[in-house]
């Protein structure tokens, strides 16, 4: 078994709703999530919008403090890092965001966009920095002449390459890819996904890949976690989650997603997940999925099912499994 790189233990994140005098409630964005990301693996986190994928990832990156729980990076508690340790953590980890049109400063040339982390972390200055930027651009498939251009001169796919080059600048171990391919056209997405896979092999990287797109998650991930309304409902290897899904929600979204084969059209009569994702302000009691679950029994509305191991690391939280 490969070593764990990132470990979350019962991480919760609530956002208070401010009233006039006091807090009037909480948005329970992430609820007691435990997960482990192994070295040199891609962990895919999938779920519908508002399910807490990004909040969990931001908590892991220590961009927002968790309400409860512990996060470990390389065995060290991320939440107790002092200023120097945090700086080192920031160098060892980095993020690529969804929209390459808003994640790059329009007033900076590419040499500065990619070179900025090098200066901040004191890795290289002046001509050394330029050389390093050149080699970073080369790694992501951009040309030297791109160095002195502005972001608006690039296409979406090229911008995402720039964002990846910047993420690689500090020679990180761990990269958070938050919907990194979602804004791109399929043919461009294919290039970015191939690039990410190559970089992972060559530079021994570990990814946390967030997406709502099931086929992308299936393509890129080694391990997969499925989130629903702040909870991790199922976790396992790609084969476990996609070939033998156990949680009714996972089964539901897999059945719902359109297939790339006209002969496999979903029949309209087939059960589809009814209704919509409830609000996280007053989430349903018990299992949060019971309001939409086709298999729900009375117990589901009363008791929160624990995440149980169904063998070989295939974890699921459901009373009916």
């Amino acid at each position, binding site marked *: 078994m490969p070593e764990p790189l990132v470990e979350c233990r019962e991480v919760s994140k609530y956002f208070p709703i401010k009233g006039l005098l006091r807090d009037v409630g909480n948005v329970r964005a992430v609820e007691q999530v435990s997960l482990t990301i192994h070295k040199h693996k891609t962990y895919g986190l999938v779920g519908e919008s508002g399910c807490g994928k990004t909040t969990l990832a931001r908590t892991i990156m220590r961009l927002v403090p968790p309400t409860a729980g512990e996060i470990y990076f390389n065995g060290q508690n991320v939440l107790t890092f002092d200023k120097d340790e945090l700086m080192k953590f920031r160098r060892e980890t980095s993020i690529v965001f969804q929209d390459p049109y808003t994640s790059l400063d329009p007033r900076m040339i590419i040499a500065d966009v990619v070179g900025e982390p090098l200066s901040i972390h004191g890795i290289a200055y002046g001509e050394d920095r330029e050389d390093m930027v050149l080699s970073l651009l080369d790694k992501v498939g951009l040309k030297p002449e791109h160095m002195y251009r502005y972001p608006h001169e690039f296409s979406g796919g090229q911008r995402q390459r720039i964002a990846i080059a910047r993420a690689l600048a500090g020679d990180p171990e761990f990269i958070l890819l938050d919907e990194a391919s979602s804004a791109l056209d399929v043919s461009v997405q294919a290039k970015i996904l191939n690039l990410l896979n190559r970089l992972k092999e060559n530079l021994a990287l570990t990814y946390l890949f967030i997406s709502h797109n099931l086929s992308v998650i299936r393509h890129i991930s080694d391990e997969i976690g499925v989130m629903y309304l702040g909870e991790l409902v199922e976790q396992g290897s790609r084969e476990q989650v996609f070939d033998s899904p156990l949680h009714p929600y996972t089964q539901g979204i897999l059945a719902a997603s*359109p297939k790339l084969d006209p002969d496999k059209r979903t029949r309209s009569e087939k059960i589809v997940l009814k209704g919509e994702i409830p609000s996280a302000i007053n989430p349903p009691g018990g299992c949060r999925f019971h309001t939409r679950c086709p298999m729900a029994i009375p117990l589901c509305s009363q008791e929160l099912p624990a995440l149980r191991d169904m063998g070989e690391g295939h974890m699921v939280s459901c009373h009916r499994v």
Partner: protein
Amino acid sequence: MEKEDKILVVENLRTQFFTYGGVVEALDDVSFEIFNGEIFGLVGESGCGKSVTVASVMGLVQKPGKVISGKVLLEGEDLLRKSEREMSWIRGSRISVISQDPTSSLNPLFKIGYQVSEPMIFHRRVKRKAAWAEAEQLLLRMGVPDPAGKARNFPHELSGGMRQRAVIAMALACNPDLLIADEPTTNLDVTIERQILNLVRQLQKYLGTSVLWITHDMAVIAEMCDRVAVMYAGNIVELSDVRTIFKHPAHPYTVKLLNAIPSAESTAKELDEIPGAVPQLIDPPSGCRFHPRCERAMAVCSGEKPEDVTIEKGHMVACHLYS
């Protein structure tokens, strides 16, 4: 097939935009036809001309754009010869559109019920009260729970899926002959997308409306459409029934595009890449517009624009490999 079987015939449509940078040849000789009661898919990547096709059909090409030549025949009548006044009658009653973003196609200042009844009041001269009642009925048919309550809501009070249902209700308010769905599920989550896809399919079966379904998502095409046209850089490069496109794609672009999509069916670690980027249409490549990126390009490809070749009944491809 007889002329009567076709609800919409688009012939040699050419739309250009006259910008300061030069003439953008957004649509270059686009032809297709939609039969009565079918779902016709138009698929392609951003900038290939899908939305310009919609705008040209609807007579909504804005300056500096202009439809240069071609015909858009709705049941035999050429829409390009209609006056703006006539077009505004046709839009909403005989052709209607569901757009990608339900938030921006609803007016935030009016209640859902009013917005759904507006086309009835405008086109069918229905009285306000009767139209409101019909709107509630329509919302109910769209699977909106508590339609009377939702009709009194403003758009911001509804979820994305509910808003899209309201927009579909609006589009169907006058029982149009042709429904144009321009990426209607792109902004929705999988489970909501599935609900909307099933809804449209049920409605289409029930009402017999013809649908022009525009999307960049091949999987949605596979789910929904009867026939499909693949667009690239302002051209239709391949057109056939949906099974043929997926089982025996002929045009090199279609083949590449299908192999670039990560899917359960293919387990390859590397996705197929198309070298280069989509060309600028101000100065499009000569001959076949795909030739600079095509692995199978020949000498003739850069010189001559390929003719539409029918390689099988109903399977058209524009590529020199087949001529």
